[in-house]
């Protein structure tokens, strides 16, 4: 126990978050001025830095897209997970599991292809596709987290006179929070990556320079978008790791 604790304390995992976050912000702000670097790295490009949109704008668009779609996923996913584990919702459990699984088995490009003709081009179809795509881990982890609450704990809660609602909000959800957060973490990280494809249906994101670079065979554009997306994903992941630790029952 002592050994593992001192080992984890010596790892720079928690300490890395502020540094990586600062690096991400710095790169976002100064990516526009990185022309000399990319000229040196990839000589012979007409235009070494993507300049149709500013990088801070692209990052903001990306974050808004992911945040909005994830909020929808969390709201629907957690509600569905709670419903499926209530006695009234037991029958719907297989259906809910299946629907959320199907949402994920479709490749994200295919989901976009299906949604775009229905919802048009731009932000909206991307939002719907990402929200659907991020549903599965949240639904499944919500159900799993609620089901791991020991039955003795629930019986004690009932025996002491907590109402169903109090049991859910005071006992079940707090105890399931770590597992639910783990599901949200997977969902958000996947969506940060998937949101790059959203630019194929006209939603602006960090995928826009990547797609543009691929089309015009400009590797510098691809790198500039990809570096920022990767850093955003890593920073978000570290943030969620902290959050999960906060919610775990023994906080050591």
């Amino acid at each position, binding site marked *: 126990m002592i050994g593992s604790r001192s080992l984890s304390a010596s790892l720079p995992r928690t300490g890395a978050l502020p540094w990586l976050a600062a690096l991400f912000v710095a790169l976002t702000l100064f990516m526009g001025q990185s022309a000399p670097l990319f000229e040196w790295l990839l000589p012979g490009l007409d235009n070494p830095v993507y300049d149709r949109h500013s990088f801070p704008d692209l990052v903001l668009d990306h974050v808004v897209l992911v945040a909005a779609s994830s909020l929808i996923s969390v709201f629907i996913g957690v509600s569905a997970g709670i419903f499926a584990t209530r006695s009234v919702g037991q029958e719907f459990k297989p259906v809910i599991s299946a629907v959320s699984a199907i949402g994920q088995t479709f490749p994200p490009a295919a989901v976009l292809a299906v949604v775009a003709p229905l919802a048009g081009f731009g932000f909206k179809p991307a939002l719907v596709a990402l929200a659907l795509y991020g549903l599965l881990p949240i639904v499944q982890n919500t159900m799993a987290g609620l089901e791991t609450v020991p039955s003795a704990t629930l019986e004690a809660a009932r*025996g002491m006179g907590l109402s169903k609602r109090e049991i859910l909000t005071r006992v079940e959800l707090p105890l399931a929070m770590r597992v639910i957060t783990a599901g949200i973490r997977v969902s958000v990280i996947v969506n940060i990556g998937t949101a790059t494809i959203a630019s194929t249906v006209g939603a602006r994101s960090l995928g826009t320079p990547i797609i543009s670079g691929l089309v015009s065979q400009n590797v510098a554009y691809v790198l500039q978008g990809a570096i920022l997306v990767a850093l955003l994903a890593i920073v978000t992941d570290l943030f969620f790791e902290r959050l999960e630790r906060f919610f775990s029952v*023994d906080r050591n």
Partner: protein
Amino acid sequence: MIELDQVTKTYDGKNVVDSVTLSVDKGDFCVLIGPSGSGKSTTLKMINRLIPLSGGTIRIEGQDIASVRAEELRRRIGYAIQSIGLFPHWTVEQNIAVVPRLLKWSPKRVRERVESLLALFHLEPGQFRDKYPHQLSGGQAQRVGVARALAADPEVLLMDEPFGALDPITRDSLQEEMRRVHEETGKTIVFVTHDMDEALKLASRIAIMDEGRLVQVGSPREILNSPANDFVLDFVGQSDLGLKMLACESVETRLEPAASISRSAPIENIRSQFGQADHVWLLSPEGQVEGLLTEAPGGQDDLDRSLRPLGQESHATPEMSLKEALSHMVWRKTGWLPVVDGDGRLTGEVGLSKVMERP
């Protein structure tokens, strides 16, 4: 206090609890006991409506439990289960305070109540208040579990095999503590177990169940002395039934007058004692029992040779159980033990042949 009237629970057409009628008086420690599947736990859980009744009625202080909202009823009844029932994400204080907070007690009153309950179970409040359940030993967690059940000062306490998961030594000390807490608080307790020794140790009344039916209700002594049928006889445990019976009776019930004489008496007087008795207790000049003489000593020098020393460790007291007295007799290889009062004065004796007699 608690009246069960023709209480029945049916699952899939089978009566798991079959018209059980039982009344538990105020201050009783009633132990429901039976093999697994006998319906004892189900019966207990019907009292706080964790399980709905299929038939019959249950009244607490004359009030039908069906006429109260389930949550309200449960807040009036303490409920303790095995230690895993503690909320793992809450501290000891938060766990104990659940029901008082639901009942909207003032924070000050809650805090005082938690403190006095921890003290009742010999848990130092400063040390334990802010601990999480995973930082407690099994015995400590179970104490907290019982303290939580008592938190709102309920009239009735229901306990469902609360000590089942503990090791024998911890279980023993928890049982002792439970007995003390029952005496101090005078709560009405209904306690489920499958362990007959636990039942004999704690119960003022035992209710034995088999296949959903109530087979016998009575004091531990009544159950041991006159088991209602072969099932009860088997269940109580034929192998050491005798010892269990002796465990519920005190030396006082078999006390006989004892012949004794002081060491400082003339030897002729000591010898003459054997005219009326076949054994005589020899006392020190201060009046403490030194040992047993089973034959008349030949002379003063002979006194210590014929004395069978039985020191303080092998003295019986009137409150001692006959089981313990018998154990001393076997260990010291003697047919009699001196029975002494609090000051160590001989008040009588207890003999092997008397122990064997039925009361």
